[in-house]
């Protein structure tokens, strides 16, 4: 406890004469990268891609995009309501998924789950939801409620649930445990800790995941048209099947605008929150 004002002697602390061991170059990282490169080449070999076709195809691809120009808007009377229906399917599906995953995600997060078993079970459930393709979900729900937009909503909700539980739980797990502990120390119970401590802390993350998911769901709902769920997907197929590429381009643009405006909205919200 030297309280005097003397300048602290340099070099005194820590620089024992021990020599720093130069760590082996990070073998793990290198190994992973080397393996990745080899595996990549192996995959290419297995896929047996016809490279000669690649250039000609790209030319075709660009000409085709060119031919789609200008968009043919004459079918807007059908396209716009169909787009709105797809949008509604996506919104409702996402909302349902968000509500349910807001409960389940807290059971899946390791720092909040009653125990690790519960967390693993909920996470496993979420993975299963994600792995089953939306088309299969749609089929399952068509059996239950018939054709129309409703099975589309349910299929999207269930599929989104799989992703949202996972990412919500991840956001919660990334949270500083000290904050949870502080509320625990004041005698708050599980629900209070979540509502007053966890949600305010992760709300931005939850919001941006939700919006990202909404973007994905708009894309998914356009595909679901094909299974009789209506919406803009059917319009797109119709245009493609009649080789009406200009109309198809218009429809693709409508889809793009829908998703892009959600993305813009999310950028605005991120600034606000």
């Amino acid at each position, binding site marked *: *406890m*030297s*309280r005097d*004002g003397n300048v*602290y002697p340099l070099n005194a*602390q820590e620089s024992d004469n021990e020599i720093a061991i130069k760590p082996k170059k990070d073998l793990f990282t290198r190994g992973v990268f080397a393996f990745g490169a080899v595996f990549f080449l192996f995959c290419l070999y297995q896929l047996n891609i016809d490279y000669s076709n690649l250039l000609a195809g790209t030319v075709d691809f660009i000409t085709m995009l060119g031919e789609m120009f200008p968009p043919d808007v004459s079918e807007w009377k059908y396209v716009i309501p169909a787009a709105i229906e797809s949008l509604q399917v996506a919104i409702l599906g996402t909302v349902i998924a968000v509500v349910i995953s807001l409960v389940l995600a807290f059971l899946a997060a390791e720092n909040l789950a009653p125990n690790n078993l519960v967390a693993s079970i909920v996470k496993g459930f979420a993975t299963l939801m994600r792995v089953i393709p939306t088309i299969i979900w749609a089929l399952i729900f068509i059996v239950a409620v018939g054709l129309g937009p409703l099975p589309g909503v349910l299929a999207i909700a269930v599929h989104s649930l799989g992703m949202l539980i996972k990412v919500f739980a991840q956001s919660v797990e990334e949270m*500083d445990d*000290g*904050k949870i*502990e*502080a*509320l*625990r*120390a*004041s*005698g*708050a*119970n599980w*629900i*209070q800790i*979540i*509502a*007053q*401590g966890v949600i*305010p*802390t992760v*709300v931005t993350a939850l919001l941006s995941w939700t919006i990202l998911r909404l973007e994905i769901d708009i894309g998914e709902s356009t595909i679901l048209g094909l299974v009789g769920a209506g919406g803009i997907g059917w319009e797109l197929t119709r245009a493609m099947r009649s080789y009406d590429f200009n109309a198809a381009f218009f429809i693709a643009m409508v889809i793009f605008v829908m998703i892009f405006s959600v993305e813009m909205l999310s950028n605005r919200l991120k600034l606000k929150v």
Partner: protein
Amino acid sequence: MNPILQVENLKKVYSDGTVALNNINFEVHPGEFIVVIGPSGAGKSTLLRCINRLVEPTSGDVVFKGKKINKIGARQVKQVRREIGMVFQNFNLIDRLSVVNNVLHGRLGYTGTIKGALGLFSKKDIAEAEEILERVGLSKQKYKRADELSGGQMQRVGISRALAQRPRLILADEPIASLDPASSKIIMDHIFTICKEDKITAIVNLHQVDVAMKYATRIIGIKSGEVIFDGQPSHLTKNIIDEIYSNAKQPLVNAQ
């Protein structure tokens, strides 16, 4: 006067085999201001956490107001916890909520689940929280978001949250380790004065021996999970300090 807290043969072995505490015994009487010192890894944090059961003791007893709290159920643990305020090194405030809301978190243990979850605190609680904020000089900041404050102000909110619990005991785990000297002084003064005025017992972990000497009514020195000094500051000789911190980097005093 009965002791408010008794720690008897307390032992904590973490799941990885680390013996963090070994055979700790002491009694705390109402009104004491105890500072726990010891090198990094000595077990100071573990000791505080065992007292409010954020960490489950391996063996031994913790007796709070005459009740063995290491044998009680989850429900009762919450009741005990709300009588013990805790102050953290990293403040652990909820950033996006207002200052007064953070203080009101101290009332969650006394509020119904739903009301608490929705943040519907009673008028009385709110008035009290504002009073506490006034006491620590933060009236002007009460509607600010917690993350808009400086470190020293955040810690004052942390103290206010603990006070909102109307605690009998305050545990503070290195409350000034993240603060600059100026704020450190303000914080220590606040903790000390409030505990004295409100007759709250305090156990404070500190790294700085000089600060400990200034405030403590009693100092407990821990090393490698064992108490190796327990007495008045005046009895803490340079030799004992050296022993506590030997084989460990000595906490150096400020650059004055």
